[in-house]
Each structure stands twice: as structure tokens, then as C-alpha cells.
């Protein structure tokens, strides 16, 4: 393998851009699983669903980012409905339901995946936009514009969500629900409604993340499988419940993947996320910033 500092520098820059993207893609899961303890294995599938909806709107001429923003309210409602269903069927009934809740989301993920195959076929899908295909030249390096855009939006998303959770009333209620549901109930707030709202936000955010996914590269229905590793790696590495942690964890994953790609080759890159996940679970399961 060739080694040069230029190449290493480029790999790190690319890793940072990629890492922020991974953070944006995982932030919904951080909320749903990290804060609300919902075993949301279907999150990557919802992400790919968001990407395909963006593609659909794109075929009518919509700009992908606008499409993503427009899809957010729809996905919010979808998330609320999903949580409500999950709560009524599983969470209410106690611990054994945890196993079945997991199986339920697994089933949902598969249904979404197959639904996409039936609706769109197995072919890869792309979106076209003015900023896709161009690049910025920084000295010797050419950085693709689509990566910079994803990076920017991801940062904005992470910042917005962190602010929301710490500064607004509902945001703090969500954090409270995660900490101590009983106490919250005693204070007169309805934890189920708050969780519903939070899950809706998590799903809405994932719609925009899905738009970023298809901007970054082509998607196909089975793309959700590799993202199981990436999103859960980020969420677990961050530590459950930490939003800023998600950004840091995303960066770590992005840079690691980029360096492995440069040094060991493309055939090892898919294992980085899963490998890192196992390492974190083995050594420090509460993650970097966990509660």
C-alpha cells in the first residue's frame, strides 16, 4: 500500500466529513434507543426509506435537501404512530415483551426492505443536483461538494437537536423521561405522550438523514444492513443518551473507516463499524459519555 502524509491528511479530512454524516444518520437512533430505550433495530431501514422517498420526490424535480426537509413532518407522524403501536403492544406488558419488541422491529425492518424492493426494484438509485459531482479545491486536495454539504447539514442537525433537548421545555421533559419516568409522572406530565413526541422527532430527523444518504452516494434496498453496524456503533460508542457524544463517536468511526480504507483496502472497511462496536461492548459498554 502506498503511504504518504498527503494521503493520510486527505484520509483524515474525508473521515471527518464522513464522520459527521454518520453522526447525523445515527442521531435519531441516539434519541430512540439511547434516551427512550426502544430496541429500534428498524432505524437503518427507516433511514433508507427516507432516502427512497427523497429519490421519489427527486424524480419530480425536487431538490434533495428540500425533499428531505419536506419529508420531516411526514416521518414525524410515522414515528409517533410506530411508537404508539409499540407501546400498546409491548412496553405496557413488561419485560418478556422486550424480546418480542426486538423481534417486532426486526420484522418491521425486513418489511420495509422488501417493500422497497417490490416498489423500486433492486437497482441502485441516485439523485441529481447541481452540487453533486462538483468539488472544492483546497490546495492539492479536491473535496467533493456533496460531502461538504452533508457535513454542514449534519453539524446543524446535531447542534439543533442538542439545543432543543437542553433549552426547550419539551426537550428537557424528554431527557427527564429518560432519567426517571416515575418522578416525571408524579410531576403531572404524561410520559407516554412525551416519549411519543420524542420518537416522532427521532424519525423526522431520520428523514433528513435519509436525504443526506442518497446525496452522499447511491442507495439500494439492502443498504440498511451495513448501516445497522454504523448507527449502533456510533450510538453505543457515544454512550446512551448523549447527543454531543454522538458527534464525537461519529467522527471516531468516520476517521477509523477512512484510515482502514486507505491502509488495508476496501475489503476490510465494512468490518470497521461492527468491529469497533464489539470492542466498545466488550471494554466499555457504557460508551464514552454514557449516563
Amino acid at each position, binding site marked *: 500500500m502506498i503511504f504518504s502524509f498527503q*494521503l493520510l491528511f486527505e484520509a483524515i479530512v*474525508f473521515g471527518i466529513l464522513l464522520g459527521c454524516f454518520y453522526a447525523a444518520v445515527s442521531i435519531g437512533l441516539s434519541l430512540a434507543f439511547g434516551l427512550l430505550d426502544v430496541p429500534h433495530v428498524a432505524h437503518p431501514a427507516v433511514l433508507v426509506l427516507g432516502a427512497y422517498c427523497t429519490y421519489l420526490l427527486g424524480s419530480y424535480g425536487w431538490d434533495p435537501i428540500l425533499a428531505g426537509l419536506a419529508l420531516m413532518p411526514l416521518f414525524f407522524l410515522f414515528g409517533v404512530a410506530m411508537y404508539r403501536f409499540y407501546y400498546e403492544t409491548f412496553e405496557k406488558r413488561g419485560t418478556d415483551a422486550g424480546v418480542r419488541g426486538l423481534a417486532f422491529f426486526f420484522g418491521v425492518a425486513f418489511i420495509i426492505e422488501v417493500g422497497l424492493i417490490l416498489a423500486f426494484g433492486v437497482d441502485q438509485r441516485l439523485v441529481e443536483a447541481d452540487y453533486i459531482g462538483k468539488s472544492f479545491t483546497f490546495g492539492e486536495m479536491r473535496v467533493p461538494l456533496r460531502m461538504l454539504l452533508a457535513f454542514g447539514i449534519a453539524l446543524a442537525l446535531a447542534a439543533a437537536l442538542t439545543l432543543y433537548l437542553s433549552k426547550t421545555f419539551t426537550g428537557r421533559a424528554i431527557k427527564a423521561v429518560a432519567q426517571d419516568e416515575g418522578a416525571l409522572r408524579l410531576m403531572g406530565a404524561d410520559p407516554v405522550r412525551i416519549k411519543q413526541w420524542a420518537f416522532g422527532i427521532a424519525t423526522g430527523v431520520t428523514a433528513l438523514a435519509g436525504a443526506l444518504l442518497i446525496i452522499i*452516494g447511491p442507495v439500494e434496498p439492502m443498504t440498511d444492513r451495513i448501516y445497522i453496524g454504523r448507527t449502533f456503533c456510533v450510538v453505543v460508542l457515544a454512550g446512551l443518551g448523549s447527543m454531543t457524544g454522538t458527534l464525537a463517536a461519529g467522527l471516531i468511526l468516520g476517521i477509523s473507516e477512512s484510515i482502514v480504507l486507505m491502509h488495508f483496502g*476496501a475489503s476490510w472497511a465494512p468490518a470497521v463499524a461492527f468491529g469497533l462496536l464489539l470492542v466498545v461492548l466488550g471494554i466499555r459498554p457504557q460508551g464514552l459519555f454514557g449516563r
Partner: protein
Amino acid sequence: MKSLKRRSFLVAGALAIAFGVSAPVAQAQQPIKIGHSMALTGTLGGGGKGALIGLQLWVEDVNAKGGLLGRKVELITYDDQSSPATTPGIYTKLLDVDKVDLLIAPYATVPTAPLMPLVKQRGKLLMGNFSFQVNSKVGHDMWFNNAAWNVAASWSDNFFAIGKKFDAKTVAFLVADQEFAQNLARGAKEIAGKLGLKTVYEQNYPPTTVDFSSMIRAIRAAQPDIVYVMSYPNDSVAIVRSVNEIGVGPSVKLIGGGMVGLHFAPVMESLGSMLNGWVNYHLYAPEKTMDFPGVKGFLERYSKKAIEAKVDPLGYYLPPFNYAIGQMLEQAITATKSLDDKVLAKYLREHEMKTIVGNIRYGPDGEWAKARVIMVQFRGVADKNVEQFRQPGKQVIVEPAEYKTGEVLPFDKARK
């Protein structure tokens, strides 16, 4: 009541006679079933759909002439989604459930690879469809490929000959980790070694890779003269886009070589001017040196059907060669008056086939005895225009000399 009884008696009698008489006739009226799978979706789908139309045109033509051996021909097709996981099941179904008489291979090496042991063990003739060296390990003696290449040299010699024109000393290999690309790469690296070219970069990537920017960057850092890419349609598109986005460096004079997919019209249309300068293999281009008898007429008829079906309207790659598969089967069946795999295989091995893509003679490995792989360079391609490719000059044939229609330009000059 009485009339009903009489009527039903008559009907029963008629049926009995009909069955009695039709029993021997039924055999003759049974259609000849030819079974295959085709990549209608997945990475190869852009080409597979057109290929199917090529085959269907042949079925139409032969049935219009009365069929084969007095029987109609029926084509049974399944979508294999470009995946080698589906083909063993599909071909087992074709043989045991659909009970087909003859088999045609799926389009391309990767879906075909799993079938070679199966057809060898069941003693079935398999008409190949654009696979590369897929029979090299199994050595089935009833395999006949329709594509105009044979061994690795038939492909890579021409590509490296172009490199020599640029006085190239170094080469980079970007190879998909699948059967086709690996077969091609094995041969190519040997030839590169014999020519004294130094390999400065080598990367095998998993077929599901979607982002090539890191690899392109690494290639740029290695500063090769030649970049030999061996990829399937999805990756070919991603690689062309990536090079367009971040550039491959001023050292590269020649890039391309083994990229499947840059022949499908939808791909050519969507990549547009990004294709300029790329040199790639081909088997047919609408240039005057390749006007075989019958091919222009076929392409016109094909185009009409393809436009209706909203599929590749040009059909310069697979469709004529798929029609040729039909023609070869037709010749063999008509001459031997048999559907037996061994008999047909013997005929195909010993005779020259006349098809719209030229005359074909087979070597002992089931590949063309004389290869005819050309290298084309994309030049002056504009964006979002598929009809431009009907004009000569967009895919300039640069090698070998007997089909050449223009001189090759170095990559960055051709991009302007």
C-alpha cells in the same frame, strides 16, 4: 333430458377420439422450450433488458418461419437480479419443474459461475452469454460462448498496446472482487509483467462498494501511466463519477479497459461528457469497419421494440450477440434435426456459425477461436443525449489496427 344425454355422449365421444388421435400428434405440437435467466434488475439490468429483446426478436423470427423441427419455440425467462445466489435455484427449476429442452446461460460471468458445475454434472448444453473465462476451472465440454473474446490476452493485449503508444512504464489495477474481474485481472497482470510494466497500485474491492474516492486518491498518489479498471456497471458508473469529481492526476494517459456497463445506453446518457477520454473494451461500434451482414437491419428493428419497452434504444452491445445465440441454435438444430445436447454440441464444435455478428468458429474451450475485442475511446460526448451515439466518431475505435477508425488521445487531452 334426452337431448342433453345425447349431446354429452357426443361430446364425450368426440373428446375420446380427439385424445386418441392427438396423443402422437401432441408431441409434435409441444413447443420447444428454451430456458434461461436474465439480469433484468440489479447491476447488470441496464444491459439485460436489451439482451432479452434481442433473444425475443429471434424467437419471433424463427416462429414466423414455422419454428424448428415443425415445432414452435418458447422462451422461458426468469429475472436473476444479477445475483449468483439466485441462478442455481432458477436453473434447477427450469430443468425439473419447467422441463425445458435447452438452456441459455444468464447474462455475464458472475450469475453464470455457479451454474458451470451444475450443467456439467447434468450433461446439459449451455449457450454462454457474455461470460469471461467462466468455464476455465470446470472445463465443461458443452459450453459455447457468444462473446468475441477468448483468453485474457485477447482483451488485455489491445489495451496495453495503447499504453505502449504513450510509452507507459507504470500501471495501476482497480479490480472488483468477483469472478469476471478476477479472471480478467489474472491474465492482465501476467501480460503487464511480460511487457515490463511496473505495478504501482493494486486494489481488489468488494462488489458492493459505492464510494471510490479513497481509492482514486490513492491511485493519484501512486502516479501511474495506465489505470486498468475491471468493474461491473454500478461500480463503473461510480468510478467514472469519482474521477470526474476529484480527478486522477496528470500522470494518467490511459484509463479504463474492462468496465462493464459503459456500453448500456442509459449509462452513456447519464454520464454524458464525463465519459470523454475513457478507453474501454467493446465488441461492436457503429463504425464502417464493423458493418456485418444483417446487423444494421437488426438494430433498426431492435430499436423500435426497445423504445416501446423503454429500454436501451441503441442496443450496440448485447442485443446483436443475443440474437446470434438464437441463430446458432437454429443452425445446429436444423442441421442435426435433433435436440440432444451432445449432438448439438458436436455440431457447434465442428462447424462455422453464420450470424449477424460475423462468422463464428469455436475453440476446444468453447470460446471463439479468433477473438475480436476492440478498444474504443469516448470523444466529444455531450450531456443528456443518447441519439448522438448513433453517429460515428463518439466511440472511436483505437485498437486493433484492422478495425481502427482513429488515433487514441491521452486522457487529459481527450477530456477537453
